């Protein structure tokens, strides 16, 4: 029986979209399945309305929550790693929880995936992030190195129109970015003065928010509303870039509101079909090549749930690696307030970075980055901000005038060292489509705790140097887990006994199944955002398909 398509891809996010574009341009007939809808930025995002704070958020119901397992306990000696409030004496008073909180996996189900709500960070991983075992004695080295990925990074940056400055002494030297870097926001300018005093380098953050028009799209209008969905169509989410390019070739068919339910295999153990559900009906589709791009939690979920004679423990799980080595986001954030109005809700939300600490200086240490944010909290507009201030009367009104638009967050994001005990596991419950639900077990190791301690020390030092004395509190992902960047659950590697895919994204032992999402990442790039790496890897993996 002839296959319906050359390639079927499940998941129209960062990885799936770029794989679809590459393959469609090469002339392959590609079917792209996406569980969610396609958003129209002119209508569907709340900030299109002056009264946007009263409108329903476009992506509010897409997150999942995981308990992290019974072992995610917090010892009293680690309370200094936890979130903290300021007490009356101006000291940080750490919370003393007995265990880590739940992990809220915030994603977007829709054409474009989580690029619909991301802030557009477009980082090339530093070179050392590819060899953590060789250089520092932890994690697993990648089966490829930076130089092999560089051409695909460049290609992805051009598709996205990334705005940045090439002058970054902490990254591999490179040419100009497609569009110029955005000027630093007022908040970042204040933080830069502090960084300068400390001898640190606060640099413009490369962003998939083009500063000039590309492909006829409006350039970034600095609305600060990336996480709500860009109402100008300026943010280079995958639906407006890679998928749009793929559609222009005439070789892509996109099925929205279509959910992958199961993967079937043949007698050899190769993939024979994807079973999906659309408009209430279940259908089967066959292709020469199958690609999973569902993300670091959903891809292993689908693989573990699709058991067969040749794959009794799930697709590609012959060595019990599928779902293991889950990496979450290690983050710390100090909420401060500037002593002058800075309109912190304006501008690209994450416009600056400090990479001085990304490269560890000692074995068994991992790296981290620092940055500035104004609007990461939910208190973005006047109504939500006012609602967050206690009290009423003149006192409330005066506080509102004194505080609104002055928030600055100094934050850090670290590498989460891969640990095979951290994993995605199937539960006995089924969702309403009959797909087994999953839970996530994850905890921090000694290196991760050390990262939090060091980040805290640096961030407090930075706040003092920046003369940010009005501090509201400290957020820590140790007790309030974060899942902005996740990965590792089908990691690529040379050894099939310790990895799920090879350097070509091929699932070990299966001829025709590839993975092009965050699950293949062996490391999280020393705190850098993974989206550009996922996109570059998708292009590289697609390049091997012929």
């Amino acid at each position: 029986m002839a296959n319906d398509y050359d390639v079927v891809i499940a998941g129209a996010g960062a990885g799936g979209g770029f794989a679809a574009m590459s393959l469609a341009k090469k002339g392959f007939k590609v079917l792209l399945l996406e569980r969610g809808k396609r958003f129209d930025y002119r209508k569907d995002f709340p900030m299109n309305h002056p009264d946007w704070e009263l409108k329903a958020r476009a992506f509010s119901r897409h997150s999942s929550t995981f308990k992290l397992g019974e072992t995610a306990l917090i010892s009293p000696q680690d309370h200094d790693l936890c979130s903290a409030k300021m007490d009356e004496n101006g000291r940080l008073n750490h919370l003393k929880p007995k265990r880590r909180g739940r992990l809220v996996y915030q994603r977007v189900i829709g054409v474009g995936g989580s690029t619909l709500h991301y802030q557009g960070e477009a980082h090339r991983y530093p070179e050392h992030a590819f060899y953590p075992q060789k250089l520092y004695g932890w994690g697993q080295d990648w089966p490829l190195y930076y130089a092999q990925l560089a051409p695909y990074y460049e290609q992805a940056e051009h598709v996205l129109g990334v705005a940045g400055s090439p002058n970054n002494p902490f990254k591999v030297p490179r040419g100009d970015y497609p569009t110029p870097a955005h000027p630093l926001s007022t908040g970042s300018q204040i933080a830069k003065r502090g960084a300068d005093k400390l001898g640190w380098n606060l640099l413009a953050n490369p962003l998939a928010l083009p500063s000039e028009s590309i492909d006829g799209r409006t350039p970034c209008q600095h609305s600060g509303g990336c996480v709500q969905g860009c109402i100008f169509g300026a943010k280079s989410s995958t639906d407006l870039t890679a998928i749009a390019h793929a559609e222009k070739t005439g070789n892509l068919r996109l099925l929205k509101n279509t959910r992958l339910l199961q993967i079937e295999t043949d007698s050899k153990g190769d993939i024979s079909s994807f079973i999906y559900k659309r408009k209430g009906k279940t259908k089967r589709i066959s292709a020469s090549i199958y690609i999973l791009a569902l993300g670091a939690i959903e891809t292993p979920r689908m693989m573990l749930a699709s058991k067969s004679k040749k794959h009794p423990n799930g697709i590609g799980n012959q060595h019990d690696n599928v779902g293991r080595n889950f990496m979450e986001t290690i983050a710390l954030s100090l909420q401060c307030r500037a002593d002058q109005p800075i309109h912190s809700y304006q501008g690209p939300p994450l416009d600056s970075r400090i990479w001085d600490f990304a490269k560890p200086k000692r074995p068994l240490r991992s790296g981290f980055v620092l940055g500035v944010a104004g609007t990461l909290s939910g208190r973005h507009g006047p109504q939500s901000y006012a609602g967050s201030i206690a009290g009423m009367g003149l006192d409330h009104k005066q506080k509102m005038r004194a505080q609104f638009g002055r928030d600055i967050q100094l934050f850090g994001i670290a590498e989460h060292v891969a640990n095979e005990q951290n994993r995605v596991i199937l539960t006995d419950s089924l969702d309403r489509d009959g797909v087994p639900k999953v839970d996530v077990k994850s905890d921090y190791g000694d290196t991760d705790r050390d990262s939090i301690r060091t980040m805290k020390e640096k961030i407090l030092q930075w706040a003092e140097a920046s003369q940010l004395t009005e501090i509201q509190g400290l957020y820590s992902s140790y007790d309030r887990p974060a899942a902005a960047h996740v990965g590792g659950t089908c990691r690529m590697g040379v050894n099939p006994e310790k990895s799920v895919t090879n350097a070509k994204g091929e699932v070990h032992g299966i001829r025709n199944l590839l993975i092009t999402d965050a699950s293949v990442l062996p490391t999280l790039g020393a705190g850098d955002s993974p989206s550009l790496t996922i996109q570059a890897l998708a292009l590289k993996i697609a390049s091997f398909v012929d």
Partner: protein
Amino acid sequence: MKFSRRKIVTIMAGLVPAAFVLNTVQSKARQSPSYDIIFAAMVDAIVPADEYPGAINLGVNIKLLTHVKKNKNYLQKITSAMAELQQGAQLTQAQDFYQLSLDQRVNIITRMMKSKNTSQNTRIQLSSMRAKTITEFYRSDEAFKMLAYHPPAYGGYPDYHSAPKS
């Protein structure tokens, strides 16, 4: 800031057209002073006027009450809460709620919102009306002017990197 008689007259003048369409059930619900006066005094306390307009200057009390009056049960809950607020003022200050100073009204509302001696309905309605008053006020053009804010839909923020004037 006292809730002056002049202010009461101004508010009543605004309410008269609405009063004409009120049915007899609502008339029976009114006490002296009427619940809408107490309601206006409460809204005024939540976001008062200073050098910038306050909530009642923007008609927030009228807008909220118009919504309340669409539902008989809801109106009953609000009138009951206003009666208890009035009672609280009488007990602590021997005055009608609307006659108290701004600070006195804020203190009574705040105390009653937290006190277990306050009925559950009143605690709920006070808390809810606080949130609604704040939301209505801070979605207004006047509030935007006060904060030097404009929504992003009006062309984004091209000057985000220039420090605003204090």
